[in-house]
């Protein structure tokens, strides 16, 4: 308790408290400005971008439940990150070697306005912390797409807290902490293909399997594709912060990440549109929006390691494979991943993670090479990273759901599902019919 109180008190004087931890190096104004702008861009991806993207895809009686879940994830995730999430994910002295950090940086103790000795040494440690915080916020928000239209709000809250603590923080530590076991092994994940997209995608698959199908599944036209298009456009915009911001400096690496991000998304849009056109006769707005997200998710882990040619291949491949997953395989297997969080983010992230091991070139970052540049071992490392995070997220997510289901119940009643979550969970409606 005494430690906790001291931690809270230290919030008032973070700069003084951090002097011992941080190096003496000066921060760069340009890098700091870039990272802070990118932090805001990533925040924008959760609310309003993802909220609108998902919100447009559900029935009108459930639109507020999606918006609310995204909004609350931003608030709760931010508080958890400040309190202990950042420390557990990134502190260099681990509780469990290579697996989870300690609480030295809890409540931002030792995290101040000077640069960190460990990460992003040209920007304030606080800026790096909050940039990473936005990743910790959007990852559980991505999972919302799987349980849309049928989970209790209370169960959603419990899940988001437990999943962040037990799955996101450890996995972020494995991949991005200087102490993490996958980091030390040399796993490449530039902006979160493993930590964000595979992690959330696998959790989404588990969610869909555990919670079961929506009862009133057909017909399911999205209630507002204009919302979805606006959300997808905003996600694309925010993704520049997500990927180019992960260079953690305003430099050529950031420019490379920016260009390949845009290129991969563009290739993915064109491929999805072409597939729609050929296979179901018309190019569709929802198809092109979905393609963009698949391409963006796939380029994320590779954005700081591959060139523009590879980004076209990655975007195109992700689009085609996600198309097959969403249109054919999901239906065959019969799980109800409502808004395709697994089919798009999980599969996209997986493709990008493996592609980084294939296409990484020393021309982008000296010393980092993939299979095509003669380093076959990198692909093997990427496989280990993808497989271990898949396995961990799968088991832990399953356990979390089992506990929530037994204690507070996971799913709304059949009547509540029929009435919609807006009125049954929030006593509000997105749209009034009569003034």
């Amino acid at each position, binding site marked *: 308790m005494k430690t906790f109180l001291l931690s809270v008190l230290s919030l008032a004087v973070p700069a003084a408290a951090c002097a011992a931890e941080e190096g003496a190096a000066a921060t760069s104004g340009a890098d700091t400005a870039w990272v802070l702008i990118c932090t805001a861009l990533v925040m924008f991806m959760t609310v309003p971008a993802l909220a609108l993207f998902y919100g447009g895809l559900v029935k009108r009686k459930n639109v507020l439940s999606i918006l609310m879940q995204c909004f609350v994830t931003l608030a709760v995730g931010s508080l958890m990150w400040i309190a202990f999430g950042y420390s557990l994910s990134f502190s260099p002295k681990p509780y469990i070697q290579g697996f989870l950090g300690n609480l030295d940086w809890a409540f931002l103790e030792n995290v101040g306005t000077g640069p960190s000795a460990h990460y992003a040494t040209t920007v304030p440690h606080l800026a790096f912390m909050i940039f990473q915080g936005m990743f910790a916020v959007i990852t559980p928000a991505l999972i919302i797409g799987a349980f849309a239209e049928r989970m209790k709000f209370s169960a959603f809250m419990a899940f988001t807290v437990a999943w962040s603590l037990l799955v996101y923080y450890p996995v972020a530590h494995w991949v991005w902490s200087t102490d993490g076991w996958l980091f030390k092994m040399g796993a490449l994940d530039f902006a979160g293909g493993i930590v964000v997209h595979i992690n959330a995608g696998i959790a989404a698959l588990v969610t869909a399997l555990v919670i079961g199908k929506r009862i009133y599944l057909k017909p399911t*036209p999205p209630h507002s594709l204009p919302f979805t298009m606006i959300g997808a456009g905003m996600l694309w915009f925010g993704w520049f912060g997500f990927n180019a911001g992960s260079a953690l400096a305003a430099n050529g690496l950031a420019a490379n990440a920016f260009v390949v991000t845009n290129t991969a998304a563009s290739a993915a849009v064109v491929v999805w549109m072409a597939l729609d056109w050929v296979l179901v006769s018309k190019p*569709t707005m929802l198809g092109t929006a979905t393609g963009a997200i698949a391409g963006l998710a796939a380029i994320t882990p590779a954005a700081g390691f591959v060139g523009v040619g590879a980004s076209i291949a990655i975007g195109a491949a992700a689009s085609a494979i996600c198309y097959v997953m969403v249109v054919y395989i999901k239906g065959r297997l019969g799980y109800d991943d409502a808004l395709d969080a697994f089919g798009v983010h999980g599969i996209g992230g997986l493709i990008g993670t493996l592609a980084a091991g294939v296409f990484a070139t020393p021309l982008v970052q000296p010393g980092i090479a993939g299979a095509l540049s003669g380093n076959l071992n990198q692909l093997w490392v990427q496989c280990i990273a993808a497989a271990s995070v898949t396995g961990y997220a799968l088991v832990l997510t399953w356990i979390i759901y089992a506990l929530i289901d037994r204690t507070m119940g996971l799913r709304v009643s059949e009547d509540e599902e029929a009435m919609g979550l807006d009125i049954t969970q929030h006593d509000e409606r997105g749209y009034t019919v009569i003034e």
Partner: protein
Amino acid sequence: MKIIIAIIQPHRLEQVKEELYKAEVNLITVSEVLGHGRQMGVTEVYRGNKETGNLLRKIRLEIAVNEGFVEPTIAAILKGAQTGKLGDGKIFVYNLDECVRIRTAERGPEAIG
């Protein structure tokens, strides 16, 4: 007194209104409705999944008229709504037992005019 209910294509509403005004039929109620006839609706595609038999958007007109206006009203609707293609719609004519103008409490043919 008759009530004429017509189901027409949404994009023909403006022409129908114009023809009705020319025929001095000025009182109409318009609603957006869903339905389909022999063409069996439209096919929609969401993320590669086809859904067939979805209801089409249509416009429903309700027009209360006195006897002398029945044929001019039908003629106006036909003139405005007919394209000769499947899906042009239908006109139904019902007997109307009573009509009350709320503002004045007038009843019968006076209330319609």
